[in-house]
Structure formats: C-alpha cells, structure tokens
C-alpha cells in the first residue's frame, strides 16, 4: 500500500449530503467513493452521480436491496441446533481432550465432561441437512438456506463478541453493519429510517444500543429502535400525549411558519446547504409521523398471515409479530431491519450456561415458527428476490458441560445461515472439528461474513471506507474474503 497523496481539501458539501442520509443513495455513495479515491484507492469516480443504483466500488450489480437480520442473542449452541456431532455421543461423559496437548479453557467455568446434544436429530429436505428437534419448522426450510457451518469469533466474551459480529470490532464505538449499509447505499424511502432495530421487548441485547451505533458515521445512520413493547414507538415521534403543546393544529401551523422563517433566513445565507437540509428534515419528519405508525399497524394482515408467523400462539406471538413487522418495514423501503431474540443477561436468551436441555428449547421455540413463516411469506410475496435474510449469533458453545448440563461460551466455531437474494439455497459451507469446539475447513470469520453481505448488496468491502482519527476504517478492518460458495 502506498502512502496516501496529499489531501485535497473541500469535502464539506458532500459530507453534508451524506449526513442527511443521502436522500438519493448515490450521493452518499459518491462521497465515500470520493474519499476512497483521495485516500489512494484505484476506483475512478463515477462520471455522474446516479439516481439510485448503488455503485459502491461496484463493478457488479447488487443482488439484494435490503436485509432482515435475525439475531440470536447470547450464543446459540451449534451442536444442539444445526451442527450434528456423533463424536459427542461417542465421548459423552468423558473428559474433553482434543489431543495434541491443546489447552482447553472456558471463559466463565472449569471445563466439564463431554456432553452430547440432549435432542433428537434428523436429516431434512433435499439437501439432507441435520437439524435438531428444537427447530422443527426451520428444519422444513433448509432447502432455502445457505449454512455457514464454521463461523469463528475472536473472543469468548459477550460484549466484544457482539460488537465483533455487529460492527467488525472487538471494541465499542464502531459503526455496525446496518449503519454502513445505510451510509453506503442511502435511503430507499424518505418516510422511514433506513435502519430499524426491533429489540426483544424484555430488554436490549448485550452492549445495549452499542450494537446499533453508527459509531463515527453520522448519527443519522444509527439504528432507529422501534420499541414494540413500550408506549413510545420511536423516540420523539410525537410530543408526549397530554403535553399542553401537543395540539395538532398548532403544530401544523407552527411547522409552516417555521419553514417560512427558515426560508427567509436562508435567503441571506444561500451557500449554506445545512440550512436547506434542516428545512427538508422537518418536512420529512412530518411524513414519518404518518408512515411509521402505518407500518406498525397490523390491522390489515389476514388471520392466515398472523398464523403463519405464529402470532396465534403465546410462545411465538412476540417474535412472530416482530418478524411480520420486519416484512412490513422492508416492503416500505427500510434498508436493514434487525430482529433480536433474547435480551442481555443470564436467562431468557441463547446464553444457556445452566442447562441446554432446559434453557434452549423455549427460546428456540419462540423463534422457530416465526422465522419459518417469515421465509415462506417473503417467498410468496416475491420479496425474497431482493431481500437477504440472515440468521446469526455472536458465538457458539462448548462441547463439554458447565455445571450439570449447561455449556459455556465458545468463539471457536458457530453456525449462521443466509437466505434469499443472491444466496445459493441448500448449501452448507465449511465444517467445524468433530466436537464443534474449533473451526475446521472452510472457517468463516466475522469479516468474511460481513464481506459477503456487503458483496450481495453490491458493495466491495475493501472500498467502503471512512477515515477516522488517523485510520481508514472499514467494516472488515483489513480482513475479509467474500464466501463465493454461498452465492447463487
């Protein structure tokens, strides 16, 4: 890599436009492309800024336009869901010894004895994927999915691992994938945020809002939390009800008068684009006040649809509702929706230290039918053509016991899957070692995973970069290989 050329100055207009969210995808894109060129990249600047088609470092067309990421918070156990390990049955109850004198350690406990999965396993679909009995509905969809059987993390600790999976860094303060996509691709709609997060109503995941942060990217690209449980859907969408100033007529007239005062002020400062931007932002805000509640209103959905998502059963009602909301949001132009299963903390999530047999089935059941329903619904509506669906977690779990029959954290290997736009359905890439302790051939780092997602959205992960505090930063740091085997 050559040192960068002397810096050419004068980016404020582009910078400003990118902060506004682009309005049109290409504008923001042009900015970082531009930055990249300035930093010594080789991609020439596009001759003209396109209207929408993302051109990010792109010599290729995007296969996906939008993403729904289903995030299993806490570290979903691979050897109890998708990664069938007969070796664990053979060695059940023995001391875990991977051989070669390799050191065995666990983050929060003393390593126990080898433990087989307590669940039934069967092969499913044309592809013959093994799935355990905790995910019977997803098992029926395996032919739609591309599995990454041996993803790896660099840590066994929730905080850093959640950051790594979401932002590509072990440390806090970096932009998450949704923010990079929002920043890189711009908005599809003006009426809704481009990146929406639907947390578990029981609470935020590990790292709380840190996982949805835009880091050093402009704050407009951070994940907007739609709070499906509380009384306020989106922070600040409306004045608190009952406030003496919350009077629709006054607010409407006020906005008009504000616009006219702002225009008058702007006339004296024509070159300052921020002023025009603020005027536009208030217009868009008024639009969002109408469109966000509409997107969240499930009145128009048929009983059959609700049932498909499991909304008729108490166990699946919540996650089903949020999956359905995710579909409605992407239909309306949201770029990236993240649907979390499980809050932070020691229970009610996928962090099954205490007992796999007792703790895993309920959280798996809460998501199983909703996720299968979502896939089916997206396909039926033709949305799977340009929507990428991701199923992820921050790390796996140990092949040996913690306490009586729990499992401790394991960044060594874990499973994720992708489906939809641009994904080769029915494949499984990579494999873990015989115990699902460490990655085996075809290991996929979080960087590789992010590179692949960006690729599917038409972005070259090596070129989506932003200079910050002395370093040119990417979602994939200095790593990342696109996993071609899972591309259609």
């Amino acid at each position: 890599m050559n040192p960068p050329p002397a810096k050419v100055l004068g980016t404020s207009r582009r910078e400003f436009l990118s902060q506004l969210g682009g309005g049109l995808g290409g504008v923001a894109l042009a900015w970082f492309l531009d930055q990249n060129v300035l930093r010594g990249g080789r991609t020439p600047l596009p001759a003209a800024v396109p209207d929408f088609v993302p051109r990010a470092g792109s010599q290729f067309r995007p296969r996906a336009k939008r993403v729904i990421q289903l995030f299993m918070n806490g570290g979903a156990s691979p050897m109890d869901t998708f990664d069938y390990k007969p070796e664990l049955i053979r060695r059940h109850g023995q001391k875990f010894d991977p051989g070669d004198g390799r050191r065995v350690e666990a983050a929060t406990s003393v390593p126990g004895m080898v433990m087989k999965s307590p669940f039934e396993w069967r092969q499913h679909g044309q592809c013959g994927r093994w799935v355990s009995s905790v995910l019977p509905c997803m098992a029926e969809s395996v032919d739609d999915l591309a599995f990454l059987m041996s993803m790896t993390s660099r840590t066994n600790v929730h905080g850093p691992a959640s950051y790594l999976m979401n932002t590509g860094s072990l440390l806090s303060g970096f932009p998450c994938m949704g923010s990079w996509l929002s920043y890189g691709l711009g908005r599809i709609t003006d009426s809704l945020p481009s990146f929406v997060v639907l947390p578990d109503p029981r609470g935020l995941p590990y790292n709380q809002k840190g996982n949805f942060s835009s880091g050093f990217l402009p704050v407009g690209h951070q994940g907007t939390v739609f709070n499906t449980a509380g009384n306020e859907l989106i922070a600040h969408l409306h004045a608190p009800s009952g406030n003496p100033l919350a009077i629709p007529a006054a607010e409407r007239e006020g906005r008009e008068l504000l616009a006219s005062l702002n225009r008058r002020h702007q006339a004296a400062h024509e070159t300052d684009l921020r002023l025009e931007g603020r005027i536009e932002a208030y217009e868009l805000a008024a639009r969002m006040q109408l469109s966000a509640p509409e997107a969240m209103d499930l009145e128009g959905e048929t009983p059959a649809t609700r049932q498909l998502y499991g909304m008729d059963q108490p166990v699946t009602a919540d996650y089903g509702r949020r999956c359905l909301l995710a579909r409605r949001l992407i239909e309306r132009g949201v770029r990236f929706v993240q649907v979390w299963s499980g809050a932070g903390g020691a229970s009610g999530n996928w962090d099954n230290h205490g007992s796999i047999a007792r703790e895993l089935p309920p959280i798996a059941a809460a998501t199983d039918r909703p996720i299968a329903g979502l896939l089916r619904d997206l396909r039926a509506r033709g949305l799977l053509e340009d929507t990428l669906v991701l199923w992820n977690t921050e790390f796996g779990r140990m092949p040996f016991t913690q306490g009586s029959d729990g499992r401790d954290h394991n960044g060594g290997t874990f499973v994720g899957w992708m489906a939809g736009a641009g994904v080769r359905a029915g494949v499984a890439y990579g494999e873990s070692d015989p115990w699902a302790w460490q990655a085996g051939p075809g290991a996929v780092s979080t960087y590789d995973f992010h590179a692949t997602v960006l690729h599917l959205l038409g972005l070259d992960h090596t070129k989506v970069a932003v200079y910050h505090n002395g370093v040119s930063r990417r979602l994939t740091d200095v790593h990342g290989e696109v996993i071609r085997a899972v591309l259609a």
Partner: protein
Amino acid sequence: MATLRIWAAGDGSGDVHWAYRPLARPAFPSIEDSQNTAHEARQHPVDLFVAARLAKEGWQLAPRAERRLLIRRLAYDLLGVPPNPREIDDFVADERPDAWERLVDRYLNSPEYGERWARHWMDAVHFAETHGNDQDRIRTNAWPYRDYLVNAFNADVPYTQFIQEQIAGDVLFPEKPAVTAALGMIAAGPWDESSLRDIREDTLDRQIGRYLDRDDMIGTVMATVISTSVQCARCHDHKFDPVPQRDYYALQAVFAGVERADRAYDLDPGLHHERQSLLQRKRAIGRKEKDLEAELLSAAGQGRIAHWELEQREAERAAHWQVLKPAQLASTEGSILSTETDHAVVSGGPTPVRDTYRVAVAGPLTGITAFRLEVLKDRRLPQHGPGRQTNGNFHLSEFAVTIGSGVRVALEDPTADFNQEGSSVQKALDKDEKTAWGIHPEVGKNHAAVFQLATPLTVAAGESAVFELKQFHGESHLIGRFRIAATTQPRPVRLAQRPGNISRILDMPVTERSTADRLELSWWWAERDLTDRLKKLPLPRSVYAAASEFEPNGSQVPSLRPRPIHVLGRGEITRPGAAADPGALACLVSLRSRFDLPLDAEEGVRRAALAGWLTALENSLTWRSIVNRVWHHHFGRGLVETLNDFGRAGAIPSHPELLDWLAVWFRDDAAGSFKRLHRLLLTSATWQQSATAQSGAAARDSDNRLLWRMNALRLDAEAIRDAVLRVSGDLDSRMGGPSDRQFELKAGIHVTPRVDYTVFSQGGPESCRRSVYRFLFRTLPDPFMSALDCPAGDQLVPVRSNSVTVQQALALWNDPLVLHQSLRFAGRLGRELPGPEAAIRRACEWCWGRPPTPDEAEALARYAERHGVAQVARLLFNSNEFVFVN
C-alpha cells in the same frame, strides 16, 4: 476552474514530515498587495499570516461582523450560552475603544467558561460515567475528573501542568493531592467488565482484554496530546507514520502498572500523605521485598505479633460460644437435612440448583451479641466439603435470623476466617441474592463466620429463633455440613481472617516455628496490620482513575508490580516476542524515546517519564497539537483538519507558518495559558470577520480553508440545551458534584440497569443545571442529546459531527425538555413584559440575538394569538437562526 492547492513544504519523500520537525518561530510574512489589506490586519499576528495567504490569491479578510452578531458568537464560543438582550444592547452602545477586549476578558473570567471548555476536553478523551459494553455499570466516582477539568480551565492551569497532572499528577505534584482527580483522563474511556473482572483470570480472553484496555489508554493520551495515531502499531509497524511496533509496546509498558478503578485520595495533604505511605508500605509488604525481612524478624517485629497472638487467644476464650441445638429443620428445594450428635446439620439427598435451609432453635436465649456459623469439613462431601458442589465450595447468598412471627433481627459487620476472592462474608448480608460468601480454594477445611447483632437479642422460652441460609448463587453451591452457635460476649465479636497456611503456623507453638514460618506469618501479619490502620483513617474521596492501588473488584485486583509487556507478533496474544521497556516514540529525534528506568521503580515513575516526554519544550507535536485544537473550537475547523492525526494519513496545515508561530508563542510567550491564547485569537480580525460569503473566494475555496470569512457554526447539543434553559430563566448555576441523572433508573436483567429518559420530571432539581453536569451513559445515551450529535464516550471525538437528520428535527420539536422550557419561557416573558408584542420581540432577541423584522413580528404575533406564546418559543427553538451562529 483551478483547484485551490494547499501545500505543506517538505511533503515529498526523504524529508522529515512537517509535524515531526522541530519548532521554530517563523518570521511574519510581508503582505504583497498593500492597498487591499486593511490597516488593522497588519497589527495582529494572526491576521498577518491569514491576510498574507489571502493576498496571494488576490483576496482579503471580510469586513468585521456587526456587533450584535459578534457578541452572540463570542458568548456561545466562550460560555456556551447566549448573551442577555441587555448585554447585547450595552455592547452595541459601548463606544470605548477597548469595548471588545473588555467583553472578551469578562467572559473569560466567567465560571461558565470552564464549563464550556471542559466539555471539549471530555469529548477528546471520551469521558463518560459508565463502563460501556455488555456490563455497562455506573461509575459513581467519575465526576471528580469532570470537576477537575472545569476548575483547571477556570484557573487557567498552564498547559504543561495540565497534561502532567492528568498523566502523573500523583507522582509529580505530591503536595497537591486534589490533582489525583486529574488521573481520570487515563481511565475516561470504556472498560470491558466481562473480560477484565468476570471471566476467569487464566484465560487468553483476560489477557487480550488487558492489552486492549491499555490500548485505549495509549490511544487516548497519544491522540489527544500529540495528535498521533499509534494504535495501528499494535499489529505491525505503522504503514504511514514512523511508529514501529516496539514503540507501541513501550507505551503499553508505561501503563502496565495501572488499571481503571476507584482511586482513594484526600484533600488534606497530611492525611493524603499518611494514607499514601501506608498504601506504599502495603505494596512493599505485598511484594515481600527482601530488605524488609530483617525488620520483620527483629525482636520488635516479632514482639508485636506475639502480643497480637495473645490478644487473639484471650478474645477467643472470652467468647464462650454456646452451640445451639436445632429444634426444627427445613429445606425449600428438597435437600434432606439431618442433625448429628454434635448439633451439626448435614445436608444430603438430591442436589437442587439452589436452596434455602431453615433451622429453628428454641428459646430461651438471653443477651446474645453475635451468632457464629461454622461450615464443617466431612469425608462424605466432594473434596471433603464443606460445600456440596463438585469443587467442595458453597455459596451463602444471604444469612438471616427471625424471631417470633417473622421479625427480622438486624445483623451487621460480619467477619469470616476465610473469604473467597470477590465473595466475602459481607455478601451474605448485602441483601443481594446474586452475591455470596464462599471459601474456594480453601476447601476440605473447617471455616466460620460471625454475624454481630445490632442490639443484644433475647428470645423468650416458648419462642424460637429461625436461621435462614439462602444459597442461590451459581449452581448447586450448597452447604454440606454446618453448625450454629451464639455468644453473649460484649461487642465487637469478630473473627480474624486467616489463610490456610497461616492457620497452620498459628496453631504451632512459637518455639516450633521455623524462620521461614515466622517470616511467612510476619508478611501476613504486617499486611493485615496495615489494612487495619488504613481502615481507621477517615473515609477517603474517590475518583475513577488510573490506579495501581484499589479495593479488589471481583477478580480485578491490583498488580503489585507492572505487568510484563511483550511485543506481540501481529498483535496476537499467542505470539509474545521480546519484553518491552517503558518509553515513547522515536520519531521525535530531539527527545529520548526510552526512559531507562530502574527495574524496581514504582509504576508511577513510568507515567511521570511519559508526562515529561509529552510536555518537553522540544516536543513539537504537543505544542502544535494544542494550538490547533483550540483553533478548531474557535473557528469550527483546525488549521489541520484532522485534530488527532498529524501523521501522513492526516490533513496538512492550511497555514503552516501560522500554526508554528502560534505553537511557539503559546509555549514561550503565553507560558501555556489557554486564556491568553483565546484572547489572542478572539481579538484577531480573522475571528471577527463576517460569515457572509464573498463571491470571488466562494467559487474557488467554497470550504473557506483560507479564512476569507468566518465559518457559520451549528450549536452543539450542550449549547442548544443550555441556551433553552438560559432563555427560559431556568438555568441553574450550581457547579460541580455528582452528575444529574436525567432518567429513571431501574435494576436491569443483569448488570446494566434499565434507563428510561421519558420518565423524568422536567423542572426538578436535576433537570436544570448546565449540560456538562448531565450523567453520561455509554450504551444508553440520552436520545435528545444523541440526535444533536453529542458523543456517547466510546470513541475519541476531537471534532463533533454536525448532522442534519429527521430524528434531530423530531427531537427538537417534541422532546419534553423543549416543550417544558417553551412553556417556562412563555411564562417568564409574560411576567417580565407588558404584552405579546413585547414578549415576541424579547423572545427573538434571546434566540436570534436581534429583534424581529416587522414581517416576522407580525407573523409570530398572529401565531401567538391563535396558539399562545409558548408555541412561538417552541418554534424559535427549532429555527435555523437559533441553532446556527454566524
């Protein structure tokens, strides 16, 4: 159209990069076009450089802005609040030739100046008041560092001292213990509690966590003080800048003896000295320093221990423990409890995950002052107990005694003969079922705990006392065998904590003890004695800061010596290379890059050496960095735009000679006085220019890099909030102290609490102080402030982003603070002024710094007539003219 070229000399290969060159005071330039440049621009050093550069393009400085705009600009710049309309009028009418200088001085002397400028520094060092990450715990004692900053700016502490205090104030200024709070800088950033406290000490994840934690400390110091990004060199030699890996790990070694923790200090120098010497001696004892041995083994030393042993034995004899016979036993979760002949209770049968044992003892009991719980070893238990867990341990979450119909007996000040690290017996009385007393690794031995009664207890005949042993922590950490006793001995009734090896020695007659035994006992006794003496001192103050000495926090314990640091191959923990000695960067050739410290020097000496390196007169980076930082906050952009990166990937100076001139002037002439630097910049014609565009320059330098006008700046989050409070009349001027929590706080699922900003009473005592006193929650920041680009404290933020978003519009329009203060503002205007017309006029003067035009006044009056003045206030708070300063 030609692109404007800004070029720093010597950027070509082979030359020393501009930032590393030694500082020399440049000569003033001569201005080429004599007729174009106004006379006054030739009087001021800043203007000379700026005007000379403009003249090369055939341009000149813009005319001075009108006074109304200038005072508004100045008030937000120095104080972060708008000027009072009366102040504006007075200044506009002030005909004295030095009216401007007087105004600048008045503002610089206002305490609001420190509140404004401390916040810039807090951004730079990413200060917040929680740990961040998944266990985002509150740091109750972070705020003293914020107060240190406010006071330091107001007192105009010279820059050299300012930096030295923050890096090594404890070592360099021992006579001023209050500056201990300055060490908050090193600890300002996030801390990964899971990795550094909760996971196992013997894991690679723990070691990685430590390197990354120090990495943040290094990054904070080097980016902030010398505008150099060193962190790339964690994995490889820096690609662009002369920062090799060995320099990076030399910096790691500087901080290898400190951690982020609550650090004790005292304001009284005498007391501070006493506490610090005791702590220092305790460290020396902890390290078992060879030259202390003779003293410990001397007759005097051994005599003190013998005296103590005698006291102990007498106390034990006096205690008269009466073992209580259980009358009734119960387990709530299915353990089977039975009594043995010695009145011990044995637990067997199934092993539930958690359990509560209840033991009833029949009265009468008279004048009881303490209860003793013995946990007993037993061959039938795993590892011989006393616990039922496979490792022989137990976890007693809570111990309680009730009498009669459930009246709870007040227990306090418990002691045990042994406490597991992080699980002391205090945890059995803390009413937190998630914490517990344990004895690992001292399993297979008897242990005991004593719980004192707040007042002596009597249980009548026919009544009973019920002992409740909750064991909820961990999994199946149940007690296997135990016994309860009572005493009437006057308080205090306490057990001395003793590790197993010490019990062995103490149980031996003195004459049979070997020298090694006596020495071992002496080390233990001396440490214990120092702990006691420290406990007897008045409670210290505490600041969350870099600390080498602190109360253990779970498995985070102070290291007696700096931890060894190795150069890590590719930054991988599994590839440790050569050991690293403390030092700094070799790229500044005029300074020694290795500190060559004696191996046994205290860790603080390392930090002091770094502080010396950073503040050396020859450190060209330091002086260029700080004048550029201050310039940025006055002009909205640095002379070098990348405030934290003067390396080759960073920007180049737009006015290199001016930068160097300012650096030398600040260092030598102003002796590092911030206030003198502010005064210099603010009295320049460059700063006082109009912000209106000039057509010629705008076409070729639309970014205004050459400063042909002033930049119009958007108010930052704090200035907007503080301005709203100031104009409504509600701004509370109380300074300092613990931060205002503008949210409802509830227990969370795990460590991180639940925080709800919507449930907060506007107008209460915690709602109206300046924004610098808001509590800063890392992973749960205030959505109103976030929408206005207030950083969350995860990243160093030398330059705030300046976004325009829909969320921001919604926040300013709908946030409860804005709505409440709109009503308050309207109320104030109604009280102070005769009618709506005057009220609207005054409202505009407050918000825009000018009266409304007749058209504006009329439109606003019509709106007020229909919807009230409060809606006008809300509208003004949302207007572009309010949020921008020209």
